[in-house]
């Protein structure tokens, strides 16, 4: 029986249980002449929860544990020379057995021990399925009957149901923590494995990036982070050089000068830029911007590569404009009007007021906005993958191709990945570096933005 069917059945039984609880609570109240503590619906809900939750828990546990148990049992029955293989080779054997057991069939001769093991696997699965069905059915029934019999007018059904709801809410908010823990642990774990092949000194301070193919063996190749970090910084700096002036001037114009109709029209249009998928920017860079720069370079006699730090940086800058402009806009509009009035009253022009009063007052917040934009640029992937050219060499020329941290993560983890080789594990070390850098930038930026905002509250 498929898992989906099973869940649907459990839900259906819960619906029935709800109805049973509902009718029973009314009946009991009538018979005993007492009024119920809670509304009848809560009694129904309580019965449904008692009936369904244990069964669903068993279902979840089973899904987590069954593969492991079955695997251990099958392996214990294998001939000793097979069972003694490394876990990866064992995976291959088990996959083959699985194909045989599920009737999918395999290529090549089937050894007698394989046939026996496949049959064993098949039998275990059948037994497991039946056992699960039996356990779940009995839990459904026991829960239903037990909760149904407990119904009495004095039962504080609502409080019980609310406790369950409360628990569920707490569990859901735990998911956010679990995700962060998952990110940190998985990346730390894999990065540690990487550092057992390559020393952290070589990784963090190496100036050569040349990971060879994973088939060559372990620890081969140079894993120097610096060329990638340099490329990342170069592209991000170009992006900020595009986005910051345009974004800031846009924000100033929108907040201080623009008539309301222009603001109403232009602001949402510019914010469209933030909602466009980054892959679209990547393709745009590759098809339009790169060739354009190349042609301009030809005209003025400079060699500009179509895929270069410049192309990627400029397009990324376009992407970040709305980010800078809307954050700066918020902060500029929060500067109290009295400051402007004072400055204008002393005879300053509007631009003088803006430059010498409004901007200095808003400066911390604007710096925070820039840092947030910078962390976006550093973590951005698809634009650089398509348009930066991927050439992990230390050089200072933005017209040449560069490589970034994110490009390298994608390159090392796509294709035939063997998670045990340093060539793919390095992606996690890179990811951890990226995570730490962007996190630090974000924390500083949020701190600055928050601290500044409190001044006028």
């Amino acid at each position, binding site marked *: 029986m498929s898992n989906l069917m099973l869940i649907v059945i459990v839900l259906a039984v819960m619906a029935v249980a709800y109805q049973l609880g509902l009718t029973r609570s009314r009946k009991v109240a009538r018979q005993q002449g007492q009024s119920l503590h809670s509304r009848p619906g809560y009694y129904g809900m309580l019965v449904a929860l008692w009936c369904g939750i244990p069964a669903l828990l068993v279902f979840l546990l089973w899904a987590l544990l069954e593969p492991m148990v079955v695997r251990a049992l099958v392996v214990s029955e294998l001939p000793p020379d097979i069972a003694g293989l490394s876990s990866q080779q064992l995976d291959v054997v088990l996959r083959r057995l699985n194909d045989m057991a599920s009737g999918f069939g395999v290529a090549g001769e089937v050894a007698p021990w394989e046939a026996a093991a496949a049959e064993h696997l098949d039998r275990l699965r059948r037994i497991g399925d039946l056992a699960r069905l039996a356990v779940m059915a009995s839990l459904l029934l026991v829960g239903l009957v037990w909760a149904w019999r407990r119904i009495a007018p004095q039962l504080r059904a609502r409080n019980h149901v609310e406790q369950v709801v409360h628990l569920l809410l707490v569990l859901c908010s735990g998911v956010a923590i679990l*995700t962060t823990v998952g990110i940190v642990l998985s990346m730390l774990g894999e990065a540690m494995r990487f550092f057992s092949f390559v020393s952290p000194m070589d990784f963090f301070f190496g100036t050569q990036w040349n990971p060879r193919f994973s088939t060559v063996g372990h620890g081969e190749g140079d894993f120097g982070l610096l060329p990638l970090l340099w490329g990342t910084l170069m592209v991000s700096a170009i992006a900020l050089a595009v986005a910051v002036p345009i974004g800031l001037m846009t924000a100033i114009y929108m907040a201080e000068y623009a008539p309301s109709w222009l603001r109403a029209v232009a602001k949402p249009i510019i914010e469209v830029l933030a909602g466009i998928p980054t892959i679209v920017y990547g393709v745009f860079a590759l098809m339009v911007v790169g060739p354009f720069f190349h042609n301009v370079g030809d005209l003025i006699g400079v060699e500009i590569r179509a895929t270069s730090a410049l192309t990627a940086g400029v397009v990324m800058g376009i992407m970040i404009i709305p980010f800078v402009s809307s954050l700066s806009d918020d902060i500029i509009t929060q500067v109290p009007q009295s400051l402007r009035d004072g400055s204008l009253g002393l005879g300053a022009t509007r631009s003088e007021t803006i430059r010498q009063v409004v901007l200095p007052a808003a400066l911390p917040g604007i710096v925070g906005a820039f840092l947030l934009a910078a962390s976006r640029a550093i973590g951005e*992937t698809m634009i650089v993958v398509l348009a930066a050219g991927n050439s992990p060499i230390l050089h200072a020329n933005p017209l040449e191709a560069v490589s970034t941290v994110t490009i390298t993560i994608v390159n090392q983890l796509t294709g035939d990945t063997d998670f045990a080789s340093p060539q793919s594990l390095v992606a996690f070390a890179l990811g951890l570096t990226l*995570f730490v850098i962007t996190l630090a930038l974000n924390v500083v930026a949020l701190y600055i933005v928050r601290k500044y905002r409190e001044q006028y509250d």
Partner: protein
Amino acid sequence: MNTPEMPHTPNSRALLQARIEKNLRRRHAREKLFRGMGLAAVTAGLAFVALLFASILSKGLPAFWQSTLVLDVYFDPQVIQIDPKPTQQAGESPSEFRERELAWQGQLAMVNWNRLLEDSVIALDPDLGSQRRDVRALFTSAERYTLRDRIKDDPDLIGQTVPMKLLADANIDVWIRGNIDRSLPDSQQQLRPAVRQLADRLHEEGILQVRFSKALFFNTDSRSSPASAGLAGAFMGSLYMMMIVIFVAVPVGVASAVYLEEFAPQNRFTDLVEVNINNLAAVPSIVFGLLGAAIFINWFHLPLSAPLVGGLVLSLMTLPTVIIATRASLKAVPPSIRQAALALGASKVQTVFHQVVPLAIPGILTGSIIGVAQALGETAPLLLIGMSAFVANVPTSPMDQSTALPVQVFLWQGNELRNFFEARTSAAIIVLLAMMISLNGLAIWLRKKFETRW
């Protein structure tokens, strides 16, 4: 010269006046310049939007039309020599019937369908009989399966002549539309001179037409037959992932926002959760891809390239967006409503779920839709969990191998048949953007419709 120590002489006053005016002119000029710079920045922003959309649309729209051969195909019984389609007989078990049917389909696969395609062109001009190879080069290679499927569905067609619209080969399409320089020497052309002449001739005769093509929407990706490559598989993959995001991220996000906003005590745990959510919202998307690769694929051994894994990764990414949006809309519900409910004897849970959350639903919906739209356009994390693999089937469940719309864009932009696939890539982007814009439009419409001022 003009010393400010003697301000009372008429001469020096005039000088001062002149200096002030000069200074004012300078200041006003700077004012204008500053204002002009602001306007220029706004114009630049708007121009980027216009440029982006104009270039995508101008490149992508032509790809919705494709070179198509409009022909009468004669299903020649001489060529299609197969047994009648098997029907289930009395006393026959389903597996026996299935075996016979498979054998029959095996016969179908042996038929020389290319010959039928060639014959349909040669029927127009018997002189072409000696040029079968050139004629065959007109069709994209998937069209022989189109013929096979017609016969498989309806064997009665054998011996009949059916008017059909068949896609031309991608290289023919490039040639007919002039997307390749026609003056290039033969050695640099994809097509033989005879094929090019034939294509031009059929184009003039109106047999080879540029028609609106449904292949882009209803076919899956294809390697052997670029002209019939379509988005159906990627579309379904994206749909499955969005469904997973809706079923995982939205309920969990709303629940945790409700807890944090309405129930949570002020303690270490809730502080930690809050800081976490803000941090998660800022984590680069590719890091979520690494998380998916390490946990879902490496530890739990979930299948590579499956929408299930992609959906889970995107759900974790979307979670902070949903939580932040939900909290904002819960905050907007005035406390008086809570107090009124509590005063009437409702419990805390009843107050929240019967009064506060229903009032906040428009805001929750808007935030969730925007989160889903973001997830729809995300590419980088999907590359890390293997969704960039070539998949030629429409996935039928979230556990099947699949790609997604943005990943399909990524795959097509790297295709070596550039002249053809640049347009395809942009067309795929148009479809993706159309979906995103309609989702965002829905969010804006919902916000407008349910906007309340308390």
